[in-house]
């Protein structure tokens, strides 16, 4: 028998996918499909938009209206799709480099507009497609092929960046914490306004190897041991939070949504 999720929400003839053994991207892609299934969205009304990079190959496998655009520009294309047809449920898939380096301007402005797009950032802390160069989320001192002596940049906190820019929903999860990921992605899609889920992925091939992170299982175990839900963290003593990363829902508020506001202008002239 066939994998029921694949059968219903993916283009089965395109599998197996291109990602490396142990790459976390497939886990996140599956979670998006489960969220869509759970929400009962009409496949014909879902549009998945991506830029360039490993994660951006996801839409090719997903059985919706799919748009694989230019590097960094997914949110800008998606803004056009959404504004032109607000009935479409538009989900953007972007890697850390795609979203926060070359596409950083589109991220902050989509968040500022509070346009009803759901952005899922597949954050593997590296440029994978081009072979392991450091990205804006590569931790300081870690290595990439273009940071052979250790990265001297300070990394972005993408979930916080989105909040600072005005996102009305922002959350973080990891490829290990899949049940939580499912819930957060579902909530992000349901959210009316700009939503971002930073899904921490793993790149065993480049990031892992370059930084001696061990096996795929070691990298997943690291996610398991080092991320704490923000609600749990609130109750933990300081020493237990030391060196841990927060995940969970960071913001979830309702503010006027861009396409709604535009519809009001149109309505004004229809009277």
């Amino acid at each position: 028998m066939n994998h029921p999720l694949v059968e219903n929400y993916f283009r089965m003839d395109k599998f197996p996918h291109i990602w490396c053994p142990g790459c976390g991207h497939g886990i996140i892609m599956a979670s998006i499909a489960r969220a869509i299934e759970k929400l009962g969205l009409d496949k014909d009304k879902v549009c998945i938009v991506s830029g360039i990079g490993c994660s951006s190959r996801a839409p090719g496998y997903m059985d919706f209206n799919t748009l694989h655009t230019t590097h960094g520009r997914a949110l800008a294309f998606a803004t056009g799709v959404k504004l032109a047809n607000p009935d479409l449920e538009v989900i953007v898939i972007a890697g850390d480099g795609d979203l926060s380096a070359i596409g950083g301007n589109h991220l902050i402005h989509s968040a500022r507009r509070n346009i009803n797009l759901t952005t899922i950032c597949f954050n593997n802390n590296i440029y994978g497609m081009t072979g392991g160069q450091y990205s804006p989320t590569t931790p300081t001192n870690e290595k990439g092929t273009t940071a052979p002596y250790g990265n001297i940049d300070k990394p972005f906190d993408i979930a916080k960046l989105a909040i600072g820019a005005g996102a009305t929903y922002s959350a973080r999860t990891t490829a290990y914490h899949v049940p939580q990921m499912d819930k957060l992605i579902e909530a992000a899609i349901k959210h009316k306004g700009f939503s971002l889920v930073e899904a921490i992925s793993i790149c065993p091939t480049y990031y892992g190897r370059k930084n001696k992170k061990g096996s795929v299982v070691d990298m997943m175990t690291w996610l398991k041991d080092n991320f704490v839900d923000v609600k749990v963290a609130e109750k933990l003593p300081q020493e237990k939070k030391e060196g841990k990363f927060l995940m969970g829902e960071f913001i979830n508020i309702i503010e006027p949504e861009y396409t709604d506001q535009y519809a009001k202008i149109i309505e004004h002239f229809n009277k």
Partner: protein
Amino acid sequence: MAGSKEDLTIHINEAWCKGCGICIAFCPKKVLGFNENGKVMMLDRDNCIKCGMCQMRCPDFAIFLGGKE
């Protein structure tokens, strides 16, 4: 999808499995293992609790709960 857990069993699509070992390592009942091709195999079907975590964490859609055939 089948209704209750009783009707479900683990299916493995070896052709899609890339042998990363995630499902094996994080299976709460340790019922999975590698076969001679380095791909996942069911070692102990009786003790599988059908929690579905292998399916959720499989990056390759190669292991899943489905109806018994």
